[in-house]
Protein backbone atom coordinates (compact mmCIF):
# COMPACT_ATOMS: atom_id res chain seq x y z
CA UNK A 1 0.00 0.00 0.00
CA UNK A 2 1.32 3.39 -0.93
CA UNK A 3 1.76 5.77 1.99
CA UNK A 4 1.33 9.32 0.88
CA UNK A 5 2.43 12.46 2.67
CA UNK A 6 -0.31 14.35 4.51
CA UNK A 7 -1.50 17.84 3.78
CA UNK A 8 -1.45 20.10 6.81
CA UNK A 9 -4.65 21.86 7.83
CA UNK A 10 -4.38 25.35 9.24
CA UNK A 11 -8.02 26.01 10.16
CA UNK A 12 -8.54 26.32 13.89
CA UNK A 13 -11.60 24.20 14.80
CA UNK A 14 -12.15 26.37 17.87
CA UNK A 15 -12.50 29.64 16.01
CA UNK A 16 -13.60 28.61 12.52
CA UNK A 17 -17.13 29.80 11.80
CA UNK A 18 -17.56 27.07 9.22
CA UNK A 19 -17.29 23.85 11.24
CA UNK A 20 -14.21 21.92 10.14
CA UNK A 21 -14.25 18.87 12.39
CA UNK A 22 -14.34 15.53 10.62
CA UNK A 23 -17.71 13.83 10.91
CA UNK A 24 -17.65 10.12 11.71
CA UNK A 25 -18.08 8.24 8.43
CA UNK A 26 -21.52 6.64 8.07
CA UNK A 27 -21.46 2.87 7.72
CA UNK A 28 -23.12 2.40 4.35
CA UNK A 29 -21.72 -0.98 3.40
CA UNK A 30 -19.94 -1.99 0.23
CA UNK A 31 -22.79 -3.08 -2.00
CA UNK A 32 -22.73 -2.52 -5.73
CA UNK A 33 -24.89 0.43 -6.76
CA UNK A 34 -27.14 -0.91 -9.52
CA UNK A 35 -26.79 0.70 -12.94
CA UNK A 36 -30.52 0.48 -13.65
CA UNK A 37 -31.13 3.55 -11.55
CA UNK A 38 -29.31 5.56 -14.22
CA UNK A 39 -31.17 4.12 -17.17
CA UNK A 40 -34.64 3.01 -16.16
CA UNK A 41 -37.69 5.11 -16.94
CA UNK A 42 -39.52 3.48 -14.03
CA UNK A 43 -36.78 4.66 -11.71
CA UNK A 44 -36.98 8.17 -13.17
CA UNK A 45 -40.75 8.15 -12.65
CA UNK A 46 -40.25 7.15 -9.04
CA UNK A 47 -37.75 10.00 -8.64
CA UNK A 48 -40.35 12.38 -9.99
CA UNK A 49 -43.05 11.17 -7.62
CA UNK A 50 -40.93 10.86 -4.52
CA UNK A 51 -37.94 13.13 -4.94
CA UNK A 52 -38.35 16.06 -7.32
CA UNK A 53 -41.91 16.84 -6.24
CA UNK A 54 -41.08 16.41 -2.57
CA UNK A 55 -37.80 18.20 -1.87
CA UNK A 56 -36.64 21.79 -1.79
CA UNK A 57 -34.97 22.75 -5.06
CA UNK A 58 -32.92 25.73 -6.10
CA UNK A 59 -34.99 27.86 -8.47
CA UNK A 60 -32.81 30.83 -9.33
CA UNK A 61 -30.28 33.42 -8.26
CA UNK A 62 -31.94 35.96 -6.02
CA UNK A 63 -30.15 38.71 -7.97
CA UNK A 64 -32.55 37.93 -10.81
CA UNK A 65 -35.47 38.86 -8.54
CA UNK A 66 -34.10 42.16 -7.28
CA UNK A 67 -37.04 44.41 -8.11
CA UNK A 68 -40.81 44.06 -7.76
CA UNK A 69 -42.13 42.46 -10.95
CA UNK A 70 -38.92 40.54 -11.68
CA UNK A 71 -39.63 36.95 -12.61
CA UNK A 72 -37.74 33.81 -13.61
CA UNK A 73 -39.15 30.70 -15.28
CA UNK A 74 -37.42 27.49 -14.31
CA UNK A 75 -38.15 24.12 -15.88
CA UNK A 76 -37.92 20.72 -14.27
CA UNK A 77 -38.83 17.71 -16.38
CA UNK A 78 -42.22 18.58 -17.86
CA UNK A 79 -43.01 21.13 -15.18
CA UNK A 80 -42.51 24.86 -15.58
CA UNK A 81 -42.42 27.11 -12.52
CA UNK A 82 -42.59 30.87 -12.20
CA UNK A 83 -40.61 32.62 -9.47
CA UNK A 84 -41.43 36.25 -8.77
CA UNK A 85 -40.68 39.22 -6.53
CA UNK A 86 -43.92 40.91 -5.55
CA UNK A 87 -44.63 44.51 -4.59
CA UNK A 88 -44.32 43.78 -0.88
CA UNK A 89 -40.84 42.37 -1.42
CA UNK A 90 -41.85 38.75 -1.00
CA UNK A 91 -40.80 35.88 -3.24
CA UNK A 92 -43.40 33.59 -4.81
CA UNK A 93 -43.44 30.39 -6.77
CA UNK A 94 -46.37 29.10 -8.78
CA UNK A 95 -46.90 26.68 -11.64
CA UNK A 96 -46.61 28.24 -15.06
CA UNK A 97 -50.11 27.28 -16.10
CA UNK A 98 -53.30 29.21 -16.65
CA UNK A 99 -56.27 27.96 -14.60
CA UNK A 100 -58.55 28.28 -17.62
CA UNK A 101 -57.28 25.97 -20.36
CA UNK A 102 -53.74 25.13 -19.28
CA UNK A 103 -51.72 27.54 -21.39
CA UNK A 104 -48.51 28.91 -19.95
CA UNK A 105 -48.72 32.41 -18.50
CA UNK A 106 -45.04 33.38 -18.40
CA UNK A 107 -42.80 33.31 -21.46
CA UNK A 108 -39.06 33.49 -21.81
CA UNK A 109 -36.57 32.69 -19.12
CA UNK A 110 -36.92 35.91 -17.14
CA UNK A 111 -38.20 39.45 -17.25
CA UNK A 112 -40.13 42.12 -15.41
CA UNK A 113 -43.89 42.50 -15.46
CA UNK A 114 -46.77 43.80 -13.40
CA UNK A 115 -49.08 40.94 -14.26
CA UNK A 116 -49.03 37.67 -16.18
CA UNK A 117 -51.66 37.66 -18.88
CA UNK A 118 -52.41 34.42 -20.64
CA UNK A 119 -52.12 34.95 -24.39
CA UNK A 120 -54.97 32.51 -25.13
CA UNK A 121 -58.03 34.19 -23.55
CA UNK A 122 -56.39 36.99 -21.54
CA UNK A 123 -56.93 35.64 -18.06
CA UNK A 124 -54.68 37.78 -15.93
CA UNK A 125 -52.74 37.02 -12.75
CA UNK A 126 -50.76 39.16 -10.32
CA UNK A 127 -47.21 38.54 -9.12
CA UNK A 128 -48.45 36.04 -6.56
CA UNK A 129 -50.27 33.99 -9.16
CA UNK A 130 -53.69 35.27 -8.01
CA UNK A 131 -56.29 35.56 -10.72
CA UNK A 132 -57.36 39.21 -11.10
CA UNK A 133 -59.17 39.44 -14.45
CA UNK A 134 -61.38 37.09 -16.44
CA UNK A 135 -62.86 38.46 -19.68
CA UNK A 136 -66.65 37.94 -20.02
CA UNK A 137 -67.06 36.33 -16.59
CA UNK A 138 -70.88 36.20 -17.02
CA UNK A 139 -70.45 33.42 -19.62
CA UNK A 140 -69.24 30.97 -16.98
CA UNK A 141 -72.49 29.64 -15.45
CA UNK A 142 -70.42 27.78 -12.89
CA UNK A 143 -68.70 31.05 -12.04
CA UNK A 144 -65.15 32.24 -12.62
CA UNK A 145 -64.27 33.33 -9.12
CA UNK A 146 -60.90 35.03 -8.95
CA UNK A 147 -60.28 33.87 -5.39
CA UNK A 148 -60.80 30.20 -6.29
CA UNK A 149 -59.03 30.01 -9.63
CA UNK A 150 -55.65 31.40 -8.71
CA UNK A 151 -52.65 29.44 -9.95
CA UNK A 152 -51.47 26.74 -7.58
CA UNK A 153 -48.67 28.12 -5.47
CA UNK A 154 -45.55 26.31 -4.30
CA UNK A 155 -43.60 26.75 -1.10
CA UNK A 156 -40.93 29.37 -1.77
CA UNK A 157 -38.14 30.80 0.37
CA UNK A 158 -34.67 32.29 0.10
CA UNK A 159 -31.30 31.36 1.46
CA UNK A 160 -27.74 32.17 0.46
CA UNK A 161 -28.69 34.55 -2.33
CA UNK A 162 -30.85 31.91 -4.01
CA UNK A 163 -34.59 31.35 -4.36
CA UNK A 164 -35.82 27.86 -3.52
CA UNK A 165 -39.14 26.20 -4.16
CA UNK A 166 -40.86 22.99 -3.16
CA UNK A 167 -43.78 21.29 -4.90
CA UNK A 168 -44.70 19.38 -1.77
CA UNK A 169 -47.67 21.08 -0.08
CA UNK A 170 -46.54 19.53 3.23
CA UNK A 171 -42.93 20.64 2.87
CA UNK A 172 -40.87 21.27 5.95
CA UNK A 173 -39.47 24.83 6.19
CA UNK A 174 -36.45 25.42 3.92
CA UNK A 175 -34.30 26.11 6.96
CA UNK A 176 -35.09 22.68 8.35
CA UNK A 177 -34.36 21.01 5.02
CA UNK A 178 -31.01 22.76 4.61
CA UNK A 179 -29.93 21.66 8.07
CA UNK A 180 -26.27 22.47 8.66
CA UNK A 181 -25.80 24.21 5.31
CA UNK A 182 -26.41 27.85 6.40
CA UNK A 183 -24.14 27.52 9.43
CA UNK A 184 -21.41 26.13 7.17
CA UNK A 185 -21.78 28.45 4.21
CA UNK A 186 -23.10 31.79 5.48
CA UNK A 187 -19.50 32.87 6.26
CA UNK A 188 -18.87 33.02 2.49
CA UNK A 189 -21.61 35.63 1.95
CA UNK A 190 -22.85 34.25 -1.37
CA UNK A 191 -25.50 36.97 -1.34
CA UNK A 192 -22.72 39.50 -1.95
CA UNK A 193 -21.32 37.64 -4.95
CA UNK A 194 -22.16 38.53 -8.55
CA UNK A 195 -23.25 36.06 -11.20
CA UNK A 196 -20.60 36.19 -13.93
CA UNK A 197 -21.34 33.14 -16.08
CA UNK A 198 -24.61 31.34 -16.78
CA UNK A 199 -24.69 28.33 -19.08
CA UNK A 200 -26.83 25.24 -19.57
CA UNK A 201 -25.28 22.29 -21.36
CA UNK A 202 -27.27 19.29 -22.51
CA UNK A 203 -25.35 16.23 -21.49
CA UNK A 204 -25.88 12.65 -22.66
CA UNK A 205 -26.02 11.10 -19.22
CA UNK A 206 -28.35 10.63 -16.31
CA UNK A 207 -28.40 13.55 -13.87
CA UNK A 208 -27.01 11.32 -11.09
CA UNK A 209 -23.95 10.41 -13.14
CA UNK A 210 -23.11 14.10 -13.10
CA UNK A 211 -23.74 14.44 -9.35
CA UNK A 212 -21.52 11.39 -8.79
CA UNK A 213 -18.71 12.79 -10.94
CA UNK A 214 -18.33 15.79 -8.70
CA UNK A 215 -18.74 13.86 -5.48
CA UNK A 216 -15.32 12.25 -5.62
CA UNK A 217 -11.75 13.34 -6.34
CA UNK A 218 -10.63 9.82 -7.23
CA UNK A 219 -11.09 10.71 -10.90
CA UNK A 220 -8.54 13.54 -10.88
CA UNK A 221 -5.59 11.21 -11.61
CA UNK A 222 -7.30 9.88 -14.72
CA UNK A 223 -9.48 12.70 -15.94
CA UNK A 224 -7.67 15.86 -14.85
CA UNK A 225 -3.97 14.99 -14.51
CA UNK A 226 -3.10 18.62 -15.19
CA UNK A 227 -4.58 19.52 -11.81
CA UNK A 228 -2.18 17.30 -9.85
CA UNK A 229 0.37 20.08 -9.78
CA UNK A 230 -2.01 22.47 -8.02
CA UNK A 231 -4.44 20.60 -5.79
CA UNK A 232 -4.67 17.65 -3.45
CA UNK A 233 -6.91 14.83 -4.60
CA UNK A 234 -6.16 12.06 -2.08
CA UNK A 235 -5.84 13.58 1.40
CA UNK A 236 -9.32 15.06 1.19
CA UNK A 237 -11.62 15.34 4.21
CA UNK A 238 -15.04 13.87 3.48
CA UNK A 239 -18.04 14.68 5.70
CA UNK A 240 -21.53 13.25 5.32
CA UNK A 241 -24.44 14.87 7.12
CA UNK A 242 -28.10 13.98 7.30
CA UNK A 243 -28.77 14.44 3.59
CA UNK A 244 -26.10 16.84 2.34
CA UNK A 245 -22.35 16.21 2.20
CA UNK A 246 -19.04 17.89 1.51
CA UNK A 247 -15.34 17.45 1.03
CA UNK A 248 -12.52 19.85 1.67
CA UNK A 249 -9.95 19.89 -1.15
CA UNK A 250 -6.62 21.58 -0.46
CA UNK A 251 -5.72 23.89 -3.37
CA UNK A 252 -2.42 25.61 -4.08
CA UNK A 253 -0.40 22.50 -3.29
CA UNK A 254 1.15 19.69 -5.32
CA UNK A 255 -0.89 16.48 -5.09
CA UNK A 256 0.41 13.72 -2.87
CA UNK A 257 0.04 11.52 -5.97
CA UNK A 258 3.10 13.36 -7.31
CA UNK A 259 6.04 11.74 -5.51
CA UNK A 260 8.23 14.85 -5.63
CA UNK A 261 6.03 17.71 -4.58
CA UNK A 262 8.70 20.35 -4.69
CA UNK A 263 8.13 21.52 -8.26
CA UNK A 264 6.19 24.67 -9.03
CA UNK A 265 4.16 24.31 -12.22
CA UNK A 266 2.65 27.01 -14.40
CA UNK A 267 -0.75 25.93 -13.07
CA UNK A 268 0.37 26.48 -9.49
CA UNK A 269 1.83 29.85 -10.41
CA UNK A 270 -1.43 30.70 -12.14
CA UNK A 271 -3.38 29.72 -9.06
CA UNK A 272 -1.20 31.97 -6.88
CA UNK A 273 -1.53 34.86 -9.29
CA UNK A 274 -5.34 34.62 -9.10
CA UNK A 275 -4.97 35.82 -5.53
CA UNK A 276 -2.43 38.52 -6.35
CA UNK A 277 0.39 36.51 -4.81
CA UNK A 278 3.73 37.38 -6.42
CA UNK A 279 5.65 34.13 -6.90
CA UNK A 280 8.83 35.95 -7.91
CA UNK A 281 9.58 36.65 -4.25
CA UNK A 282 8.60 33.17 -3.11
CA UNK A 283 11.56 31.10 -1.94
CA UNK A 284 9.83 27.85 -0.93
CA UNK A 285 8.78 24.80 -2.94
CA UNK A 286 5.50 23.48 -4.34
CA UNK A 287 4.39 22.17 -0.96
CA UNK A 288 4.56 25.58 0.70
CA UNK A 289 2.71 27.71 -1.83
CA UNK A 290 -0.69 27.04 -0.25
CA UNK A 291 0.34 28.35 3.17
CA UNK A 292 2.12 31.32 1.59
CA UNK A 293 -1.07 32.30 -0.28
CA UNK A 294 -3.08 31.99 2.94
CA UNK A 295 -0.69 34.32 4.79
CA UNK A 296 -0.65 36.72 1.87
CA UNK A 297 -4.45 36.95 1.79
CA UNK A 298 -4.72 37.26 5.55
CA UNK A 299 -2.26 40.15 5.45
CA UNK A 300 -3.31 41.90 2.25
CA UNK A 301 -6.94 40.87 1.75
CA UNK A 302 -8.38 44.05 3.18
CA UNK A 303 -6.14 46.27 1.09
CA UNK A 304 -7.26 44.28 -1.95
CA UNK A 305 -10.88 45.04 -1.07
CA UNK A 306 -11.87 41.69 0.43
CA UNK A 307 -13.11 40.87 3.91
CA UNK A 308 -11.99 37.41 4.92
CA UNK A 309 -12.74 37.83 8.60
CA UNK A 310 -15.43 35.12 8.58
CA UNK A 311 -13.23 32.53 6.85
CA UNK A 312 -10.57 30.27 8.31
CA UNK A 313 -7.10 30.09 6.77
CA UNK A 314 -7.79 26.96 4.73
CA UNK A 315 -10.87 28.58 3.22
CA UNK A 316 -8.57 31.20 1.69
CA UNK A 317 -7.04 28.62 -0.63
CA UNK A 318 -9.07 25.42 -0.55
CA UNK A 319 -12.21 24.26 -2.28
CA UNK A 320 -14.88 23.66 0.35
CA UNK A 321 -17.00 21.53 -1.90
CA UNK A 322 -20.65 21.00 -0.89
CA UNK A 323 -23.47 18.95 -2.33
CA UNK A 324 -26.90 20.18 -1.35
CA UNK A 325 -29.19 17.24 -1.90
CA UNK A 326 -30.41 16.38 -4.40
CA UNK A 327 -28.84 18.29 -7.26
CA UNK A 328 -26.70 21.27 -6.25
CA UNK A 329 -22.91 21.06 -6.33
CA UNK A 330 -20.84 23.98 -5.10
CA UNK A 331 -17.09 24.52 -5.54
CA UNK A 332 -16.50 27.23 -2.98
CA UNK A 333 -13.44 29.46 -2.74
CA UNK A 334 -12.91 32.69 -0.85
CA UNK A 335 -13.48 34.87 -3.92
CA UNK A 336 -15.64 32.68 -6.09
CA UNK A 337 -18.20 29.94 -6.21
CA UNK A 338 -18.90 27.59 -9.09
CA UNK A 339 -22.37 26.13 -8.90
CA UNK A 340 -23.75 23.15 -10.79
CA UNK A 341 -27.46 22.43 -10.88
CA UNK A 342 -28.18 19.01 -12.30
CA UNK A 343 -31.65 18.64 -13.81
CA UNK A 344 -33.20 15.51 -15.25
CA UNK A 345 -34.31 15.41 -18.88
CA UNK A 346 -38.06 15.64 -19.55
CA UNK A 347 -38.41 12.06 -20.77
CA UNK A 348 -35.04 10.36 -21.30
CA UNK A 349 -33.10 9.07 -18.27
CA UNK A 350 -30.01 8.99 -20.51
CA UNK A 351 -29.94 12.78 -20.81
CA UNK A 352 -29.79 15.74 -18.45
CA UNK A 353 -29.35 19.49 -18.22
CA UNK A 354 -26.17 20.73 -16.61
CA UNK A 355 -26.60 24.30 -15.34
CA UNK A 356 -23.27 25.97 -14.70
CA UNK A 357 -23.17 29.26 -12.87
CA UNK A 358 -20.04 31.09 -11.74
CA UNK A 359 -20.23 33.64 -8.97
CA UNK A 360 -17.50 36.11 -8.05
CA UNK A 361 -16.93 38.16 -4.92
CA UNK A 362 -16.24 41.69 -6.02
CA UNK A 363 -13.63 43.79 -4.25
CA UNK A 364 -15.08 46.58 -2.14
CA UNK A 365 -16.20 49.51 -4.26
CA UNK A 366 -16.10 47.58 -7.53
CA UNK A 367 -19.06 48.02 -9.84
CA UNK A 368 -21.15 44.89 -10.31
CA UNK A 369 -20.76 43.52 -13.83
CA UNK A 370 -23.73 43.28 -16.14
CA UNK A 371 -25.70 40.10 -15.73
CA UNK A 372 -24.34 37.58 -18.24
CA UNK A 373 -26.70 36.39 -20.96
CA UNK A 374 -27.75 32.78 -20.41
CA UNK A 375 -26.44 30.39 -23.07
CA UNK A 376 -27.61 26.84 -23.78
CA UNK A 377 -26.02 24.26 -26.05
CA UNK A 378 -25.24 20.56 -26.34
CA UNK A 379 -21.98 19.10 -25.09
CA UNK A 380 -19.30 19.49 -27.74
CA UNK A 381 -20.86 22.53 -29.40
CA UNK A 382 -18.93 24.89 -27.16
CA UNK A 383 -16.47 24.70 -24.30
CA UNK A 384 -17.28 25.33 -20.66
CA UNK A 385 -13.63 25.25 -19.66
CA UNK A 386 -11.02 22.53 -19.88
CA UNK A 387 -11.77 20.76 -16.60
CA UNK A 388 -15.53 20.53 -17.07
CA UNK A 389 -15.10 19.55 -20.72
CA UNK A 390 -12.97 16.65 -19.51
CA UNK A 391 -15.70 15.58 -17.08
CA UNK A 392 -18.36 15.88 -19.74
CA UNK A 393 -16.41 13.83 -22.25
CA UNK A 394 -16.34 10.93 -19.79
CA UNK A 395 -19.99 11.06 -18.90
CA UNK A 396 -21.50 10.20 -22.28
CA UNK A 397 -19.38 7.04 -22.28
CA UNK A 398 -20.24 6.31 -18.66
CA UNK A 399 -23.92 6.46 -19.58
CA UNK A 400 -23.39 4.01 -22.45
CA UNK A 401 -21.68 1.72 -19.96
CA UNK A 402 -24.62 1.98 -17.58
CA UNK A 403 -26.76 0.54 -20.36
CA UNK A 404 -24.38 -2.33 -21.04
CA UNK A 405 -25.38 -5.86 -20.16
CA UNK A 406 -21.72 -6.33 -19.29
CA UNK A 407 -21.71 -3.77 -16.48
CA UNK A 408 -22.11 -5.14 -12.97
CA UNK A 409 -22.91 -1.81 -11.32
CA UNK A 410 -20.88 0.81 -9.46
CA UNK A 411 -17.98 -0.59 -7.43
CA UNK A 412 -17.31 2.17 -4.93
CA UNK A 413 -14.19 3.05 -2.92
CA UNK A 414 -13.83 4.95 0.34
CA UNK A 415 -12.69 7.93 -1.71
CA UNK A 416 -16.18 7.85 -3.24
CA UNK A 417 -18.05 7.78 0.06
CA UNK A 418 -20.07 10.83 -0.94
CA UNK A 419 -21.35 8.92 -3.97
CA UNK A 420 -22.61 6.16 -1.72
CA UNK A 421 -24.06 8.65 0.75
CA UNK A 422 -25.91 10.47 -2.04
CA UNK A 423 -27.47 7.23 -3.29
CA UNK A 424 -28.39 6.18 0.23
CA UNK A 425 -30.14 9.51 0.80
CA UNK A 426 -31.88 9.13 -2.53
CA UNK A 427 -33.07 5.67 -1.46
CA UNK A 428 -34.43 7.21 1.73
CA UNK A 429 -36.69 9.33 -0.43
CA UNK A 430 -37.59 6.72 -2.99
CA UNK A 431 -38.09 3.62 -0.92
CA UNK A 432 -38.71 4.47 2.72
CA UNK A 433 -42.47 4.50 2.83
CA UNK A 434 -42.75 5.57 6.43
CA UNK A 435 -41.51 9.09 5.93
CA UNK A 436 -44.20 11.64 6.44
CA UNK A 437 -44.50 13.21 3.01
CA UNK A 438 -45.22 10.02 1.14
CA UNK A 439 -48.88 10.09 0.19
Amino acid at each position, binding site marked *: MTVYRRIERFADPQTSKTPVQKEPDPQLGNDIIPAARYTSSEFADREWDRLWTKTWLMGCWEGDLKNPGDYVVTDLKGESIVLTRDEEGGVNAFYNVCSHRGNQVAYGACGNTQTFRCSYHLWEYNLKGELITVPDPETFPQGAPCDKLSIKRLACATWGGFVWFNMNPDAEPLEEYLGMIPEHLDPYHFDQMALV*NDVTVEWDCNWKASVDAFNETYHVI*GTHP*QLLSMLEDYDVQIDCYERHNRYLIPFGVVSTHVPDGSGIS*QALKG*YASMYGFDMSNYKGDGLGVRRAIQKHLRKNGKAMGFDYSDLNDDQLTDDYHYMIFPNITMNIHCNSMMLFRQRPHETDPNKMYFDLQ*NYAMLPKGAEAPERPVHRQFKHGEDSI*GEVLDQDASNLANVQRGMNSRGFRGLWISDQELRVRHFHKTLDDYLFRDSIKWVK
Partner: protein
Amino acid sequence: MTRGRLISLVPAAAVPEGGKHVCSAGGLDVLLCNVEGTIYAVENRCSHASSRLDAGKLRGHTIGCPLHGARFDVRDGSALAAPATKPIRSFEVVMEGGKISIVEPAPQPARPKFGPLG
Protein backbone atom coordinates in the same frame (compact mmCIF):
# COMPACT_ATOMS: atom_id res chain seq x y z
CA MET B 1 1.81 38.92 -44.50
CA THR B 2 4.59 39.35 -42.00
CA ARG B 3 5.78 36.29 -40.26
CA GLY B 4 6.25 36.26 -36.48
CA ARG B 5 9.76 36.27 -35.09
CA LEU B 6 11.71 33.06 -35.00
CA ILE B 7 12.36 31.27 -31.74
CA SER B 8 15.53 29.25 -31.99
CA LEU B 9 15.25 25.93 -30.19
CA VAL B 10 17.87 23.21 -30.60
CA PRO B 11 20.46 21.97 -33.11
CA ALA B 12 18.97 19.70 -35.75
CA ALA B 13 21.12 16.87 -34.44
CA ALA B 14 19.12 16.86 -31.19
CA VAL B 15 16.16 15.30 -33.00
CA PRO B 16 17.33 12.26 -34.96
CA GLU B 17 15.09 10.60 -37.53
CA GLY B 18 12.15 8.88 -35.83
CA GLY B 19 12.98 10.73 -32.60
CA LYS B 20 11.30 13.32 -30.38
CA HIS B 21 12.58 16.20 -28.33
CA VAL B 22 10.83 18.50 -25.88
CA CYS B 23 11.83 22.10 -25.42
CA SER B 24 10.37 25.25 -24.01
CA ALA B 25 9.46 28.20 -26.20
CA GLY B 26 7.64 31.31 -25.08
CA GLY B 27 6.06 29.59 -22.09
CA LEU B 28 4.93 26.62 -24.19
CA ASP B 29 6.12 23.05 -24.04
CA VAL B 30 6.95 22.21 -27.64
CA LEU B 31 7.34 18.67 -28.91
CA LEU B 32 9.65 18.33 -31.89
CA CYS B 33 9.26 15.18 -33.98
CA ASN B 34 11.50 14.02 -36.80
CA VAL B 35 9.54 12.01 -39.35
CA GLU B 36 11.64 10.80 -42.28
CA GLY B 37 13.98 13.77 -41.99
CA THR B 38 11.31 16.45 -41.62
CA ILE B 39 10.89 18.23 -38.30
CA TYR B 40 7.39 18.96 -37.00
CA ALA B 41 6.51 20.96 -33.90
CA VAL B 42 3.32 20.61 -31.83
CA GLU B 43 2.31 21.58 -28.33
CA ASN B 44 3.38 18.87 -25.91
CA ARG B 45 -0.04 18.69 -24.30
CA CYS B 46 -2.95 16.44 -25.13
CA SER B 47 -6.15 18.33 -25.89
CA HIS B 48 -8.18 15.78 -23.95
CA ALA B 49 -6.68 15.61 -20.47
CA SER B 50 -3.63 17.82 -20.85
CA SER B 51 -1.16 15.00 -20.46
CA ARG B 52 2.37 15.37 -21.83
CA LEU B 53 2.72 13.70 -25.21
CA ASP B 54 6.48 13.16 -25.28
CA ALA B 55 6.17 9.83 -23.46
CA GLY B 56 3.84 8.61 -26.20
CA LYS B 57 4.80 6.62 -29.26
CA LEU B 58 5.56 8.32 -32.56
CA ARG B 59 4.42 6.13 -35.44
CA GLY B 60 4.75 7.73 -38.85
CA HIS B 61 3.16 11.13 -38.52
CA THR B 62 1.06 10.09 -35.52
CA ILE B 63 1.86 10.78 -31.88
CA GLY B 64 -0.10 8.82 -29.28
CA CYS B 65 -1.00 10.09 -25.83
CA PRO B 66 0.25 7.65 -23.19
CA LEU B 67 -2.57 8.43 -20.77
CA HIS B 68 -5.81 7.66 -22.61
CA GLY B 69 -4.65 6.71 -26.09
CA ALA B 70 -5.64 9.81 -28.04
CA ARG B 71 -3.67 10.28 -31.27
CA PHE B 72 -2.67 13.39 -33.19
CA ASP B 73 -1.14 14.17 -36.55
CA VAL B 74 2.11 15.99 -35.86
CA ARG B 75 1.91 17.75 -39.25
CA ASP B 76 -1.07 19.90 -38.30
CA GLY B 77 -2.04 18.89 -34.75
CA SER B 78 -5.36 17.39 -35.84
CA ALA B 79 -7.00 14.85 -33.54
CA LEU B 80 -7.09 11.38 -35.07
CA ALA B 81 -8.47 9.20 -32.30
CA ALA B 82 -10.74 9.40 -29.29
CA PRO B 83 -10.95 10.49 -26.58
CA ALA B 84 -9.44 13.65 -28.08
CA THR B 85 -11.78 15.61 -30.29
CA LYS B 86 -9.93 18.91 -30.46
CA PRO B 87 -6.60 19.50 -32.24
CA ILE B 88 -3.41 20.38 -30.46
CA ARG B 89 -1.47 23.45 -31.54
CA SER B 90 1.09 23.02 -34.26
CA PHE B 91 3.90 25.42 -35.07
CA GLU B 92 5.68 26.39 -38.26
CA VAL B 93 9.20 25.01 -38.26
CA VAL B 94 12.13 26.81 -39.87
CA MET B 95 15.57 25.21 -40.30
CA GLU B 96 18.40 27.75 -40.34
CA GLY B 97 22.11 27.21 -39.89
CA GLY B 98 21.68 23.69 -38.61
CA LYS B 99 19.24 24.82 -35.93
CA ILE B 100 15.55 24.18 -35.49
CA SER B 101 13.40 27.25 -34.94
CA ILE B 102 9.67 27.78 -34.78
CA VAL B 103 7.72 30.84 -35.75
CA GLU B 104 6.42 32.54 -32.62
CA PRO B 105 2.76 31.57 -32.38
CA ALA B 106 0.10 34.24 -32.23
CA PRO B 107 -1.28 34.60 -28.71
CA GLN B 108 -4.41 32.54 -28.20
CA PRO B 109 -7.59 34.38 -27.33
CA ALA B 110 -7.97 34.16 -23.58
CA ARG B 111 -11.10 32.53 -22.25
CA PRO B 112 -12.68 34.40 -19.36
CA LYS B 113 -11.62 32.79 -16.11
CA PHE B 114 -14.21 32.58 -13.40
CA GLY B 115 -12.38 30.65 -10.71
CA PRO B 116 -9.65 28.15 -10.04
CA LEU B 117 -11.34 25.40 -12.06
CA GLY B 118 -12.50 27.36 -15.06
